[in-house]
């Protein structure tokens, strides 16, 4: 149990650092009333709102009261529309989760099998083809791929909607855009991990038992090879969140990423902070989930063992 506590403690420290960092960087960056209030509002009005949003107190006090509020689950009020900031953010979570989840599913369902095939048939034409596609896949900038897809499927062929999130048809292009690079990376990692595992002595043992190729791959190699892939998956969550912002912007997908860009543009401090904390929490949580999965996949992971990146 100790190591779970330790993990939690580390996570808490990291979270604390993140939110402190975010708080100070954002607070030090200028006066939100200048953005949020109309251009020609008088000074008294500005003061009123500064007081209302708690921007008039000394920075240190703002910080402590912010922390105090956070501990009570209060993320503050969105400056823009007076709604609970957490609510504003939380409303968008399902959309981003749907997009990210689909992208991860695409990545795993396409990337893993391709990586396995490439490794098993190493140096064959299949391997070379898969790996070439993978290099293309992860070199392709997300925003460029998105734009090309829009150009082809929305503007030329007029078959898929280019923006919004109403139906499953809306999901296709954003998820494909977000999932492609990811799938390519997963394919590469799976391949290298599989190649590593396939050369391990226990694979020879399995062969000497008379286990067939399918059995060797599915029962012996894959459980071992998926361990580093899962780790990578955890690490890549953060990267994916970044890409999600871009993808959501390109496809006007109303998720966290879009909320972030608009909140950032309008200096909605409470919302931006809430998003940052949520994202950092997601990454920390993802890493913990990875640790758990890791332990489940690999019995060697024991007390205090530290996952190697």
């Amino acid at each position, binding site marked *: 149990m100790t190591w779970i506590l330790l993990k939690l403690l580390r996570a808490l420290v990291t979270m604390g650092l993140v939110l402190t960092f975010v708080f100070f960087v954002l607070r030090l960056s200028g006066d939100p009333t200048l953005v949020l209030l109309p251009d020609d509002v008088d000074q008294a009005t500005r003061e009123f709102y500064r007081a209302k949003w708690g921007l008039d107190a000394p920075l240190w006090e703002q910080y402590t009261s912010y922390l105090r509020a956070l501990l009570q689950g209060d993320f503050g009020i969105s400056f823009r529309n007076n709604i609970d900031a957490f609510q504003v953010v939380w409303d968008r979570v399902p959309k981003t989760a749907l997009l990210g989840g689909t992208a991860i599913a695409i990545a795993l369902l396409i990337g893993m099998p391709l990586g396995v095939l490439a490794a098993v048939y190493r140096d064959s034409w299949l391997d070379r083809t898969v790996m070439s596609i993978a290099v293309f896949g992860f070199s392709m900038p997300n925003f460029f791929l998105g734009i090309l897809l829009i150009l082809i499927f929305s503007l030329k062929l007029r078959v898929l909607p280019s923006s919004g999130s109403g139906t499953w048809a809306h999901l296709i292009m954003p998820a494909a855009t977000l999932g492609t690079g990811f799938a390519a990376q997963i394919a590469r990692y799976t391949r290298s991990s599989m190649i590593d595992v396939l050369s391990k002595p226990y694979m020879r043992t399995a062969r000497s*038992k*008379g286990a067939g190729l399918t059995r060797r791959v599915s029962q012996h190699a894959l459980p*071992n090879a998926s361990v580093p892939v899962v780790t990578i998956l955890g690490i890549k969550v953060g990267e994916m969140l970044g890409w999600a912002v871009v993808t959501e912007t390109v496809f006007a997908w109303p998720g966290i990423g879009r909320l972030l860009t608009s909140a950032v543009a309008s200096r909605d401090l409470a919302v931006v902070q809430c998003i940052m904390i949520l994202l950092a929490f997601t990454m920390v949580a993802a890493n913990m989930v990875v640790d758990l999965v890791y332990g489940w996949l690999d019995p060697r992971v024991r007390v205090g063992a530290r996952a190697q990146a």
Partner: protein
Amino acid sequence: MLFSAENLSVEIDRPLRDPVSPVRGVSFSLDAGMTLALVGESGCGKSMTCLAIAGLLPKRGRISGGALKLDGQDLCALPENEAQALRRRHLSSVFQDATGGLNPVRSIGWQVAEAVRLRKGATRHEAQAEAVRLLGRVGLPDPERRAREYPHQFSGGMNQRAMIALAIAGNPRLLIADEATTALDVTLQAQILDLIADLRSSLGMGVIFVTHDLGLVAQTADRVAVMYAGRIAERADVADLFAAPRHPYAHGLLSSLPERQAQGGRLATIPGTVPPIDALPGGCAFAPRCPRVSDRCGQEMPELALGAACHHPLPPGRAAATIREREFS
């Protein structure tokens, strides 16, 4: 005769270069309940021979000639799947790195049970019970509990025992032990050797025992094949070899053992180093290092005759200890 290798050759393809032959025309035979030791220095082809027999050659490797006869059936002549089925039923291997040879994410019991199922086609439940029995048979205390544990929870010796349990699942007739005790401490090694000997006699297995340690050969083998550069240099009964090696290489090896030296004196040595497998000299591969070399050796490959592949073998029955050192300097 349980098993024989006849003129076995192995080729390994290399990218952008000519293939190499780490095993070139190796022949030996083995009866049930007997131990044959394959001995030689690193790179002599002994492990590759084992892999060829077990059908575990690396992807680029293949048997390029000869026959492998198990109960008279030639594994090389059979279709691939039939040969593999025969191997699966009758043949198994134990390798040096037991801990690496076990799958780290599967329990010991699962792995042994899998071998049982693959070899005998038992049900999951039966296989599990059989696995526990086998683990007990190889001397693991509390096999019920141990079966649920993973390789990393075992010591090296326990893992080697588990590997042996895995290897004897389904009562194979031929066991290949490739440097099976090399990584173990001497006190453990002795015990594992005892275990293998015990199993051999109780199960009536033939054992091919691959090692570089002449001490082990002396202690375990009935017959010995000394390999050098992919070929058998000498093939003899163990007592004969140690009493009077006929091939100069075998003789050199034995002489360089500290046990066979006068105390405090210099050790006998074989000058030079083993040639790389892709740059063998013409004729006898040992010729450049051989004290008995003649012109003929550089041109003509010696055939294995009367147990030694040498144009100038040492006379039979002559005690090795009496050979004077100057012959090798």
